[in-house]
């Protein structure tokens, strides 16, 4: 294949790739324009924004960020919970859920892929069935069960709720284990290593890249998601939920677009940094099997 120096392919030979390049360029423009607009807007004051909603600020108001930071809060049993605690809650929520939603599928995928009992096929089938049979409207029932178990408004309960093996994380890890030959384990077994040691010290490291990718994807998803906290954690609101409420706030100090988008930026920047640090680890490290297992 002909490659240019920087490793990219020469697209001029293929109309399909040229179209692709420009299509992507167009998408990038459409995606980034509103974001850039929001970023610029986040520095305007109220009158400036009214006067000139599309353009550079006449003065850059960095204080908008401080205002947004101070004013994002969620009331919990009569007391406002502010940003520092919201951040703490978000960390507890996202890290805990990520751990559970990575470890449980990891262990299950390992068992199902490496232990060829007939039951393993059944486990795989359960995942596929849950994925394709659409159960709709079970939210009220789930809320009831969570309350009955004492998991409602209980962070550990939420971690347990999220500790399911159903879903794509299982499929990704299952596919990862499939590409690791069992021979490594055989060698160890001759050395009388325990099943647990084989799993943790030999097999898990072999799929660490996929595990990391899955964990990162899960973390991003949990960090951003607000409905679980809104529904199940009234006493432990997260930053996302704080931001969701922030847009409906109605004091004059914060109820205008520049402050609102400053809040958006605050929420996004940490994740963006995290992603930039690790994005190379995401690509090429995950694949997924099909319906038949």
């Amino acid at each position: 294949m002909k490659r240019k120096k920087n490793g990219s392919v020469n697209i001029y030979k293929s109309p399909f790739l040229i179209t692709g390049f420009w299509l992507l360029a167009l998408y990038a423009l459409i995606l980034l324009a509103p974001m850039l607009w929001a970023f610029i807007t986040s520095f305007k004051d109220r009158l400036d924004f009214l006067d000139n909603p599309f353009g550079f600020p006449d003065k850059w108001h960095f204080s908008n960020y401080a205002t947004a930071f101070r004013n994002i809060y969620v009331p919990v049993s009569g007391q406002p919970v502010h940003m520092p605690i919201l951040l703490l809650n978000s960390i507890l929520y996202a890290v805990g859920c990520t751990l559970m939603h990575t470890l449980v599928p990891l262990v299950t995928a390992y068992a199902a892929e490496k232990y060829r009992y007939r039951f393993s096929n059944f486990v795989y089938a359960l995942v596929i069935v849950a994925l394709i049979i659409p159960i709709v409207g079970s939210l009220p029932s789930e809320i009831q069960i969570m309350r009955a178990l004492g998991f409602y408004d209980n962070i550990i309960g939420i971690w347990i709720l999220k500790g399911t093996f159903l879903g794509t994380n299982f499929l990704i890890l299952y596919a990862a284990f499939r590409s690791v030959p069992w021979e490594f384990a055989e060698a160890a077994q001759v050395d009388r290593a325990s099943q647990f040691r084989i799993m943790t010290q030999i097999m898990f490291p072999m799929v660490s890249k996929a595990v990391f990718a899955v964990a990162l994807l899960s973390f991003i998803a949990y960090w951003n998601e607000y409905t679980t906290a809104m529904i199940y954690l009234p006493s432990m609101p997260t930053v996302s939920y704080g931001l969701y409420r922030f847009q409906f706030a109605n004091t004059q100090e914060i109820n205008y677009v520049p402050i609102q988008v400053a809040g958006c930026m605050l929420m996004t920047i940490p994740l963006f940094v995290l992603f930039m640090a690790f994005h190379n680890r995401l690509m090429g490290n995950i694949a997924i099997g099909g319906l038949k297992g």
Partner: protein
Amino acid sequence: MRARKLGGLKSSKRKRLIFYICLLAYPLAHYAVFYIGVNINSVLLAFKKFDGGEFSFLEASNFFANFSNFSGDLFKTSLLKYAAKNSLLMYGVSLLIVLPLNLMFSFFLYKKIPLKGFYRIVLFLPQIVSSIVMAMMFKYFVERGLPGLFSKFNIELPTLLTDVKTAFSTIIAYNIWAGFGTQIIIYSGAMSRISEELVESGKLDGMNMFQEFIRITLPLIYPTVSLFLVAGVAGIFTSQAALYNFFGDEAQANVSTLGYFLFVRVIGKSSTFNDYPYAAAAGLLFTAAALPITLGAKYLLDRFDPMRDAI
């Protein structure tokens, strides 16, 4: 089987089995409670009412009241008709626009087109940026930024998100705009596993890029694609298409979707425990409707598996 090859001592076999059981104990217990338990409870809930602080079964004479209330709403007002139409439309868009774009973009990344590093970040951005932030930025841009830009040329834009003529198209546009992310990573991951020899042999046969995409890449990642397609059918009934992000629980009937309708029924400001049985009954009916569609889709996708004859 590999397990048998190891063979040997009975005790090691038993240890193996015990270890296996230990590994699966928690996941299966979780499955029993949060999948089977929740769903059985949901079915029961559909036949209950909330009265005097607790849920109790409906009287025999009125046993299907929740279902008849729902079907009454279904036929009496067009709210649900709108919702059903919108949900189907949204699914159509995800099938005919978002999916092909996802596949093509993945292919371009896989083929390492120029600026691929940049594009990769761009395509993953909608995933990094919280959906609520995406929705807010989109809303303010559409309602404030764009009108500001157009007013410089003395053009008055309609209020895209709330004008009845444009509202749902705008919601669709948003869902495309914010619709990339994880799938790109998974598809391009699957593509990178295609053997180089196969690609090279295609080249020798004189295939161009587009032909390679259609004849080699797509058939080889077909299992992954069909998995997402089949799983996506449920989205017709569950996706609320970001409506809650935009409108809270006050979206107008003309933009509503089935998923949104049920979500708000349970989570909305004025909803109470009284609404749970209703939502459960509606969910049960939706599931009954979705099941044949999903299985049909799976059947069709299996039939048209391009690799079916090859293997």
